[in-house]
């Protein structure tokens, strides 16, 4: 079970959060093509290794966290706010 260090609440169990998917891509702007929106909506890299993802602290402060997690070891290298540019290791 993941223990996520919420910047607002401290270390909390995974069960307090809702996974909200890949945080590595931003929603395209209003002028983007349907193809770009299709890529944003459907295409995922599924990496073995470090992954940026959204976790919403629904059972706590309701803040959205950007989390850098290793998909194999589950290690969490960094947790930040949505606008933060997290440093992805190696």
């Amino acid at each position: 079970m993941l223990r996520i260090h919420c910047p607002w609440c401290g270390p909390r169990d995974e069960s307090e959060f809702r996974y909200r998917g890949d945080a590595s891509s931003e929603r395209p702007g209003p002028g983007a093509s349907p193809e770009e929106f299709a890529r944003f909506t459907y295409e995922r890299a599924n990496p073995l290794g470090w992954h940026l993802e959204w976790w919403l602290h629904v059972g706590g402060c309701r803040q959205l966290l950007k989390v850098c997690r290793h998909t194999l070891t589950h290690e969490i290298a960094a947790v930040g706010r949505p606008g933060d540019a997290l440093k992805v290791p190696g």
Partner: protein
Amino acid sequence: MSDGPVRVGPGLLTRTTPLRFRFDGREYQGLAGDTLASALLSSGVRLIGRSFKYHRPRGLVTAGPEEPCALVELLGPCGLEPNRPATTLEIHDGLQALSQNRWPSLAVDLRAINGLLAPFLVAGFYYKTFMWPRSAWERLYEPAIRRAAGLGRLVPKDLSHAPAETVHAHADVLVVGSGAAGLVAARRLGDAGLRVLLLEQDVTSGGGTLLDPAWSTWRESQQRGLSPSVKVLTRTAAVGAYGHGVYAAFETLGIEESAALGGLRERLHVIRARRLVLASGALERHVAFPDNDRPGVMLAGAALAYLRRYGVAAGRRPVFFVNSDLAYEAVDAYLAANIRCLVVDPRRESLAADRARERGAEVRAGSLVTGVAGTRAVRGVRVESGGRGHWVGADALFVSGGYSPAIALASEAGTSLRWQEDICAFIAELEPGTGRIAGAARGLFGMAAAAEDGARAADAVIAELGAVPGAPPDSVQPDIERSPLTPLWDVGQPGKAFVDLQNDVTTEDVRLSAREGFEHVEHMKRYTTHTMATDQGRIGGLLGTAVLAAARGVAVAQVGQVRPRPYLQSIPFAALAGAEVGEHFKPKRRLPLNDWHEAAGATFVATGLWLRPLVYSREAGWGAVLAEARAVRSTVGVTDVSTLGKIDVQGKDAARFLDLVYANRFDNLPVGRARYGIMLREDGMLFDDGTTSRLGPAHYLVTTTTANSSAVLEHLEFQRQTVARELDVLLTDVTDEWAQFAVAGPRAREVVAAVVEELPLAATEFPFMAAAEAVVAGTRGRVFRISFSGELAYELAVPAREAERAFTAILEAGKAHGIVPYGLDALNTLRIEKGHITGAELNGNTSADDLGFARMLKREGDFIGKHLAGRPGLVSPERLQLVGVRPLDRRLRLRNGAQLVAPAAPAKSLGYITSSTPSVELEGWVGLALLSAGRARKGETLLAASPIHGEETAVEITSPHHLDPENLRVRA
């Protein structure tokens, strides 16, 4: 000379009052502190169960939770439970256990015929044999195989109270195992001021030191010296590692504690710790030789435990078959009990053999055991030296093939394993920052080595956690010098030699697996079921690996070991469920007005977590429902809509935010007005609907469907904090803060006027879709002129605590008009007649166009879902579209889920009925349906087919708005 096991002394048991228990109906006696295994053994019982596949007689192999064979059914207050290891069941007066997997009795098991069929019952037999014909599998093969297979029965009896609970524990360091290494580690960690949780699966702490009298004084001093910050949990096994310092442990309560806690038997501990010290010791391995499963064949360490701990000699003429000096500890113990010992050792020479000879044992060096005589008990052992074999008489055979560090908890967490040649076993290392492995669990055998290693592990953890170590550990007597072991796996004789005793997997099965191409150890596991039993192959896992390695002609290290899975011991489902059973399975959300609804005689229905009044009657059938609906259509009714999700949206950019998340516009909504809105997912499908009211220039109140309220809040928060993170807007869930009641019907205005102050209600002044704050029944509330029923309607909102006062005021005001409260069923009848959608239509597969909302999608500006909503697949005219249906024969009913088909092509579904109800407005039933190209089919006649009811009803396709399509009533 007499034969068989016998009690020769008290061992470590202190109370000598006999306890009476029953096994297979027969009464036996044991002593307080005995396990079922030691007590049966002390009574001379060797045959305890039958094996899984061949129904071979089986006895005790181990003295701990790793036991593969001596599993029993336990008859207790909760019923009959299977697969409890006799080796861990503490006896008490009145305990009742049954042997399992035998028919008709343990001594005479007719299914032992499987043993004669053994040449055919090889690995993969079921897959290969019962393949054809396919239809016979479900009818014939599977039921028969299921009856014959499986271990034990589960017969629940009294489930009125939960026999288990879940508790949470936090610690700086979790120490697993309380042998020499764990004890020292816990003491040092505690002395450094750290909070320590020390787990011991046994009933008392001490681990291996319990079996070595020379270490009892040291052990007691360590136990006494533990700092108060060390919490010791005995009877508690670590059963899972879940990463990030989260572990699961399973505690079985002692009989006295259980009685004091009203029958609570088990605790599942969820432990969060900063570091782990894994001092779980090592597990002795079995050796593969023909008939290595006969009752009386036991691991040497188990024989030692029964003798030293419980005072029971597992045999009086034992043969030992061992490959390491460590195993001679058991020889010493039997010699000390004046029992003659014959030791068969494949090594040419060893220090321990020399010492044993001096004490009177006969040691056959350079020899192997190659067979066992006896079926239900060992009668003799075949010993082979220098190519020549002969039989010796014996009543027990104590085996040791070496020791494997008990690292299942570490490898479960994904740690990679490393082969260590000098102990012929894999060892593990924990990931950095996770903790340390210590003692025998790290391959360091011997008490002194373990104690020193425990201190080392503790010091490393103390340093990592920045604590200050206490005084240096007590010095210990050094371990005696030991000769190296020799690898001993499969003696390579023809005959049935088991590697997995619980699943009846033999060396030949493993070799067959390799021959048929299942060479990877994980493939071999699945092909043969090796290590797939409840014991997960604790004593034979590596043995199977070694046999596979030999078959492939590679080193054991190269083959590797199968990965253990949680839970590391079999634990009852009841322990996982804990208190979350029955009424406590999930929380209930009760309406603010719950007590009133109950008193009014409502039948409740669970929608999500909510309990909602379905109808104000306890009788089944449509009568009461339709009476309620009719009252709304003819005069006035009131219903509780407090479950609708309510999200308060405030901020200078509130309008811009709503325009982003809704498909229609809200920036141009005037203050004091409400508007119906639809929300899409980014993929263009409909997500939710509801009315949103503008209460101020920068203040909106969003209403969501009951079912989606939390999902919508999450969605909105997600969008607010990502796409809209530059906007000045905040969301607050006020669902529970407001109670809300819909007053609907032609007389609604008169009723509302009587309870609302400060608000002119004339249609010109407070028209359809008006919203305002007002005094409602004497309290600050809100009034919305919105309608789900299709009638003139108002929704009145008051703070939740005022719910009952407001509701009674409404009823009082409505008395003169014949007001009735109506439930969810009547609400449903009303909305189907009106053609309003709920979750049945808004089902995640429908688009805005499908449900007739295409014109609501705004042209200007971005919104979530806009870009993919126009995909050809989502606007195709062939898609399922919302329509109304009515049976042509008005006497016939409709069915939700009935498929709509053309009479000419009845095999092709064109759509299905989503909602249906008897109508109070029209004759007969009305329904809503999703129908391919539905809007173009208005006026057509189709068949509504419901094969499971044997019905085919001719229906006409209509507009979904069965009544008042011009909205005259709601605007009245």
